[in-house]
């Protein structure tokens, strides 16, 4: 099933927006990003934006399995 890229972007942006603004992420040699900067990167479809989407998707996929063991 093909997933709409815009849907994914909006999903990830919404998930990031749910976090407090004083959070930052250091992502290897991509650098350091505030929540809002990451949202911008997702919107622009940059390499770090795509890495952020991958990170969020990994989270969404893995969580049901983890919660089932709770």
């Amino acid at each position: 099933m093909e997933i709409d890229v815009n849907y994914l972007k909006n999903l990830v942006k919404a998930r990031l927006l749910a976090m407090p603004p004083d959070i930052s992420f250091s992502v290897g040699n991509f650098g350091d990003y505030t929540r809002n900067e990451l949202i911008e990167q997702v919107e622009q479809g940059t390499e770090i934006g795509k890495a952020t989407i991958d990170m969020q998707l990994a989270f969404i996929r893995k969580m049901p399995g983890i919660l089932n063991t709770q």
Partner: protein
Amino acid sequence: MIVIRTNHDIATSYLFAFSEELIKEAENKGFKVARIEGINVSETNLRSRIKNKKPSFIFFNGHGSDTSLFNNQEQEFINVDSADVFKEIVTYAIACNCLVKLGPAAIENGGYSFIGYKNPFWIARDHKYEATPLKDKIARPIMECSNIIVKSLLKGNTVEQSVKKSHENAKESILSLINSKEPLAPASLQALVANDSALDFKGDASAKIM
């Protein structure tokens, strides 16, 4: 053992700070720890230390790519062409993506095992604690999941057991963070899940460092 630590940006300053306890623990257990840090991180220095110290374990903290490890100037200092440097050694590299190609190259060149990450290594942090990483409760669970690998190896466990301990620790931390009322917990949670998914090893599962 050889501990390599770059320290030139926020991410590497976090790795630097959180790895200090591992050096102390190793020394307490009788390991002779050779440090290669900051501007001294180079292939020449690493080869020289390996020749003199004949380490059983290399622990790298810094940036990387799928084919290389970076020095303090964010330039490659070890890559797939120089992966013979890992010969007959167990290596753990906290560096983005290096398990993808550098890990297999290390094993092809006689490395016993290579523990690393298949994707970028995420550190969620509270920017209030940028200058004092050890006080950062958001980053702590992420760094502890990584540190447990080294602690387990120092206790004499195998590579496979040590990676498994990290996965188990990640699962416990994840479940704790899910139920946490800390507003910044979701950031820790997501970074932890990402890193845990990316963690794996190549080479001999039964390799030990002592």
